[in-house]
Structure formats: C-alpha cells, structure tokens
C-alpha cells in the first residue's frame, strides 16, 4: 500500500525536478479545494455585508457566531441535525445486525443458492432508485407511515444491506475456521459462536463499512426528499435545500453559509479521523465493478 519512499529518503534533486510538473498541477488543485472551503467557513463567520463587499477574510466584525445561533434555532437546523443523527445512527446499527449474519452465512456455508444470493445482492448496487420509489411510496401511504421517521429509516436500512453484505463477505471468508472448530469443541452453539467469536473478529470490516454507510446516509438526498419532506422529519440535506430557497429571498447569505458548514462538518470530521481507512478500502479492491 505505502510507497517505498519514506520521509527519511535522501533528497534527490534530479528526481524532484523531473516531478515538478506533477507537484504544480496537484498543488494548484488542492489549493483551489482548500481555498473554496476556507472561503465558505470564513463567510459563515462574517456578515452578509462583508460577503458582498468581498471582505470575507478580514474579519472586521470579528467572528460572528450569531450566524450559527440564528440558523440553528430560527431555521430549525437543530431539529434537522437531530433527524439526520437518528436516521444515520439507526441505519448504521441495524444494517450491521442484519447484514453481518447474512454475510457470515454466505461466506461460511455451502448451499444450493449461495452464489445466486450473492449475485442478487451485487445486482442491487446497480438498481436505480427510480425503479423502487413508487411502490414504496404506495406502501408507506397504505400503512399510514408517510408522516413518520420510521419509513425513511426502514428504507435506508434495506438499501444499505446489499452493499454491507457484499463488503463484509470477504472479511468473514478470511477468518480461519479453526475458531469455529474450537468453539464447537467447547460446546458453543452456532449463534453464540457467531456473535461472541466471529463478529468481533470481523471488526475491521464492520468499522469500515459503517464509516461508509454513515457518509452515504448522512449525505443522502433523493429518498429523504420523497419520504421525509415534512418540516418535522427532514434530515439536514433536505433541510438545507429548503432553507437555501428561503434564505436567498431573505438575503441572509452569512446564515446560508453557516448552514452549509453545519451540513458538511460531521462527514468532514469522520473523514479527518478515518481518511486512511476509507481510502484504503476504496483502493484495496473493496469496491469492484
């Protein structure tokens, strides 16, 4: 994974100069990314007047935390934030409880439809949301669940299961079967063996897939727009979307950028902590076509 070049390697001028064009291109791109993010964060602490005057980085009026206070309370961002947390955390937990046993069964037991079921889960990754929303909306209406957080939560869980099963499968296949044999000798039943021994052993995979699920669900927009479009039920993404439409007309730009920051900070923090883990599993063949 790691390149063989460590910080300690001797500085080789000819090599570094030949890499110069590469450094320039990459640095420009990254500088642009950081500049845009820095501008948004600064704007969220300044005033609308400063934004329009192009003086975002000067902080003449100090750090205006009241932008955050305002959107957090007056625009219901606190409620949206809590909703997002409820949807995301519930989905992450329940998905693992459903997907981990399934992945284990598919990885460990030989039976007739094993390969078919695996392919079935993989196929779900390519099914466009457009194919499933109408009947689900119908179901939610018939069951009188259109005004409940339960609907979106259940949909998120069911939609996360295929990817999670697919991701966890190799982690269970790679655990030596001697653990199960030893557990069997000790008279441990299969259910207990799974939860007490195999599940903890698959922890690296479980943590990584949960990080992915967290980011995906936190940022999900389409399903939320359809299934949680009551003010009370909205997660942050949809909340921000409706808020932007109104803030544009009230002209509170500083507040709008504060809302943008509130939306991206949680995933940003997760990424800062786990970036190596996330990147390793994107590049490590965790995701294949």
């Amino acid at each position, binding site marked *: 994974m790691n*390149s063989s070049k460590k910080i300690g390697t001797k500085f080789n001028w000819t090599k570094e100069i030949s890499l110069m064009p590469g450094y320039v291109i990459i640095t420009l791109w990254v500088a642009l990314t950081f500049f845009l993010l820095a501008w948004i964060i600064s704007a969220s602490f300044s005033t609308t007047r400063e934004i329009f005057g192009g003086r975002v980085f000067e902080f003449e009026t100090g750090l205006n935390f009241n932008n955050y206070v305002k959107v957090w309370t007056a625009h219901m961002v606190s409620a949206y934030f809590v909703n997002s947390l409820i949807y995301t955390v519930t989905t992450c937990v329940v998905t693992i409880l459903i997907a981990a046993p399934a992945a284990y069964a598919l990885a460990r*037991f030989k039976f007739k439809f094993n390969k078919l079921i695996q392919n079935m889960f993989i196929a*779900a990754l390519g099914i466009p949301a457009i194919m499933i929303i109408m*009947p689900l909306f119908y179901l939610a209406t018939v069951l009188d669940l259109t005004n409940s957080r339960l609907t979106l939560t259940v949909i998120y869980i069911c939609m996360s299961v295929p990817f999670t099963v697919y991701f966890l499968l190799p982690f269970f296949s790679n655990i030596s079967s001697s653990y199960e044999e030893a557990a069997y000798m000790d008279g441990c039943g299969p259910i207990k063996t799974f939860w007490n021994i195999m599940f903890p052993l698959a922890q690296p995979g479980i943590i990584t897939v949960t990080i992915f699920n967290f980011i995906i669900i936190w940022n999900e927009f389409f399903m939320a727009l359809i299934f949680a479009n009551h003010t009370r039920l909205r997660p942050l993404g949809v909340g921000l979307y409706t808020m932007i439409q109104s803030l544009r007309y009230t002209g509170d730009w500083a507040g709008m950028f504060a809302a943008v920051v509130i939306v991206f900070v949680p995933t*940003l923090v997760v990424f800062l902590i786990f970036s190596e883990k996330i990147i390793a599993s994107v590049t490590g063949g965790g995701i294949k076509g």
Partner: protein
Amino acid sequence: MKKSAKIIILFLAPAIFSYMLVFVYPMIRTIVMSFFAVRNVTDPIYRWSFNGIENYLTIFGSDLFIQSVFNVAKIWFYGGISVMLIALLFAVILTSGIRGKRFFRASIYLPNIVSAVAMATMWIQYVYNARFGFLNEMFTALGMIELAAIEWTGPGMLFWSMLIAYSFGMVGYHMLIFMSGIEKIPAEIFEAATIDGASILNRFFMITLPLLKGVSKTNVMLWSVSTAAFFIWSQMFSPLVPALQTVTPMIYMFQTIFGADLSVSVHDSGAGAATGVILTLIIIVIFLIVNFVFKKDEVEY
C-alpha cells in the same frame, strides 16, 4: 445437516426479507405499472387500467423527456471523459513517487465525502456568483474582463457550470480507483523498462495504460451508475422549475409523479414507471457494452 440449514435460514432471512421489500417487490410493481394508466402513485391496483405501451409513447413524445435523456448522455460523455482523464493524470502523478502523497490523495478525495447539497450551494452561491463570486473576482483580478462577465448560472452556461461543479467532486473517487490499479503493477516491470531506456511517456502508454483495463472498466461502470442517478445537482441548479438545460430522467420522473410544478401539468405515475424502466434498460445496455469493450483478459501478476 438439518441443523445447518436452520442456521443458514435464520442468518439470511432478515437480509433476504429486506431485499424483497425494497428491491424485488418494488421493481416488479414498477414494471407492471409501466403498462397501465395510473394517475397517482397512491392509486390502488383496481384503479389501474391496462394501456399497453401507451406510457412509453407518452414519454417518448415528451420534449422534456427526450431532452433529459440527451442531457444525461452529455453528462456521461463529456463529464466522463474529463473526469477520467483528470483522475488518471492525478493517479499517475501521485504514484510517481512524489512527497506528501497521502496528504494530496486525501485532499483530492475530500469533496467526494461532502454532502452534494452543500457542495452545490458552494458552487452556485459562491464560485459562480456574479457579484462576489470566485470566478468573477479571479478573472477581474487577472484583467480578463470578458471572462469575468460570464453569467455562469445564466441559461447559456447553466449546463456546463453544473457539469464542472459535479465533475470536480467526482475526480477524487475515480482517481483512487485508478491508483489502486497502478499500485498493483509490480515495480520491477517499470525498472526493467527504465533500464531498457523507455521514457516516462513510453512507460505510461506501453505499460501502465494496458494494465489498467480492469480498473478502467470499474471506473466506467461506477461513472455510469452515478450518472444515471443524476438528480441533486440538477435540482440544485434549477430548484423551482426544471430548466431544459439541466433536466435529467430522474428529475423528469420526480416531476411526473410528485411534481407540484408547472412543467408537467398532470401527475402521471404510469409514465413515471415507464421512465424508470427505460432508465434501467439504458443502464443494462451500457453494462453490456462496457463488458464487451473491456473483454475479460485481466492480467495476473
């Protein structure tokens, strides 16, 4: 044996049930629905009436739908080529032995994990802003008056502005996948080629590129799936009424089923279902083509 069957069922049942609930049942119902006249999404089956391929004729007779397919094809093609080329270039640079590789890699990937609503807001309200926007200020500072005067979110540029903003965030993801392919190529091959006097460009075209067939296929597949689902960016760039420049099949369907908007006068869920079926067929066809173009001759080292 009996016992292990019981365990298998116990372990698999919740996952299979969730799959049936959210994928199998809805897909079957949507396919059936696409052959019936259905007004509201909440109409029970006894209020459907069979009308053959009428829904398909309706959507193919709609300018908005035709435009939406055309737009998504443009996103797939132009966006795809730009994103793949930039991602490949960055992947090659990052694997060429530069310092700070981990930092650069994480920074380029970063926009991909930020909520698309937040990213789109940043582009629309800041980068493209006509009064204090990044592009406006930059071009003014550089003295490029014509470029500074471009109305990025005006009707003429709307599609391209949207495509640039979207592609910017996708580069990092596809770059990571290219990098994984490049890093799997054993260093000895490059060393041997270098000793034989191959230049950087030679090494790239003769070694790296041919060996990247597998990851290129993955990249094209993933790009196709995400393009087919193109929705948020379009919704953000023309929030109230879908503009002709940015409408995509997802937006079209959303409007036909749920739209309170004026662009589609009546709700027509049958047509919405037909849109879904057509989009799924397009994805399947693209998959078959990609599989055919990148035939299975993956290299083992």
